[in-house]
């Protein structure tokens, strides 16, 4: 579903690359956590997938398309296969819950009847039934993130990218949001979630890709936020201590 082949992204030639020879493959239907310190390249990694950023070298394949060579007029078609949610929700304040979600369908030309049906279903799925008329200021952070998730998945994308979706939420709400993402993943959507939330990662035990300074430091199945695999120190050739 997503394949990075030796992808390097340089924003500023004088600084270190944001991504440095990253090669990763994510299968359809997977749930992947992207972890790493701030500035490690998580957001750049996600932006490469929905082609907000283009690789300086290497290739990014998404749903069979080489995103790096995609012409600009084909980008909208790619993005219809991808839903994106952010830490800051990005809800349109002058629209209510229903309108915010419906907006994503209206702009790609969906019919009114189809929009109504899908939006109602999706709002129920994310747990917002009965809140259609609410405005942004009437919603809690968790509810706003549910609206954002509903908007991201209303067009039934193959991939859902979540860039620190629980970053602004308390632990209980974060857990609820993660449950929504799990539900979406259970329906067959590939989910890639960049996060700092070790609780969630440790509890879910899904694949973890760890980035550090633009490089993939770790890519483990059913992993935790910090690696449990003891580190090998190449200089001495002996087994080191587990990372803190």
């Amino acid at each position, binding site marked *: 579903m997503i394949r990075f082949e030796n992808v390097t992204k340089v924003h500023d030639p004088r600084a270190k690359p944001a991504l440095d020879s990253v090669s990763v493959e994510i299968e359809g239907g997977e749930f992947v956590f992207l972890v790493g310190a701030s500035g490690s390249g998580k957001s750049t990694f996600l932006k490469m997938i929905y082609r907000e950023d283009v690789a300086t070298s290497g290739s990014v394949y998404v749903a069979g398309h080489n995103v790096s060579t995609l012409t*600009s007029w084909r980008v*909208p078609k790619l*993005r*219809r296969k991808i839903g994106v949610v952010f830490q800051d929700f990005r809800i*349109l304040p002058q629209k209510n819950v229903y309108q915010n979600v419906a907006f994503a369908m*209206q*702009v790609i030309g969906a019919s009114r009847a189809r929009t109504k049906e899908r939006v109602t279903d999706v709002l129920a799925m994310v747990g917002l039934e009965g809140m259609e008329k609410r405005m942004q200021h009437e919603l809690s952070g968790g509810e706003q993130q549910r609206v954002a998730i509903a908007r991201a998945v209303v*067009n039934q994308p193959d991939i859902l990218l979540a860039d620190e979706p629980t970053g602004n939420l308390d632990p209980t709400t974060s857990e609820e949001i993660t449950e929504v993402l799990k539900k979406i993943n259970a329906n067959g959507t590939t989910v890639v979630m960049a996060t700092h939330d070790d609780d969630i990662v440790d509890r879910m035990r899904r694949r973890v890709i760890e980035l550090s300074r633009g490089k993939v430091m770790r890519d483990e199945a059913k992993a935790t936020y910090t690696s449990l695999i003891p580190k090998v120190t190449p200089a001495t050739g002996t087994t080191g201590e587990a990372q803190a």
Partner: protein
Amino acid sequence: MRPMFIFGEIVNGLRRNLSMFISVVLVTFVSLTFVGAAGMLQMQINQMKGYWYDKVQVAIFLCSPGSTTANCSSGPVTKEQQDNLRKLLDSDAVRQYVNDYQFESQQEAYAHFKEQFANSPIVDSVTPDQLPSSFRVNLKDPQKYQIISESFSSQPGVESVIDQRQILEKLFSAMNTASIVAIGIAAIMIVCAALLIATTIRLSAFMRRKETAIMRLVGASKAVIQLPFILEGVLAAVVGALLASGAIWAISHFFLTGYLADQYKQTAFISDAQTLWLVPALIALGAVIAGVSSLFTLRKPLNA
């Protein structure tokens, strides 16, 4: 693409940006009124040219008792000189340029004069012998006036050769200058309108950057993202063009046909119906200016 959705976006945009919309309407209105006025002046010039050029002649004035030019020093024109002039007009060299000619005697000149100045007291102080007799020559090509002038001005018995067309040309050139000035002002105003539309669209795009960011994110096509902005600009310009059309129609109806045509009955003025031909041109011009200006403006902010 859903037309109702696009329409809704336009209405939203206008509501949030009403003052800028009004300013675009007003600037387009003023600039297109100048364009329309220049168009009307050109139509009026053509109308008058068509009307007068058929009627204007080259007049060869003959020496009369009151003539003072050097050519008339030997006194008024004689019968023999008149016959020679007639022969010259009939000669092959001149005939090829002449459609026809009439002789206007002093009595006939006086009759025409009385007719033209019927309401003026000047008629009482003029007698037939003060007015020169003349040959009125209609040329095949009015531009060939110089040939007639050269052939006749030094002939004995000729006081002067006057091209009536040249008198009109002065009027037309004054009107032409006025229309060029109007076009110049219109051009400056159009630049203002285009820049204002660009600024308005940029502001509108900035105010709606959250929406456009979401639109791009969920895969809306470039057309759906840009169309509401472009149509907003075009709508403002078209409203301005309609106001300008109303203004030029009012000028035509109340000033030209209502006032001037009444005052100057001899002159052919353009009609209201002719003025209405300018309306589609003004609307098209307004739409094109706005469309091009917004397209150009939107290339960057919504593409990032």
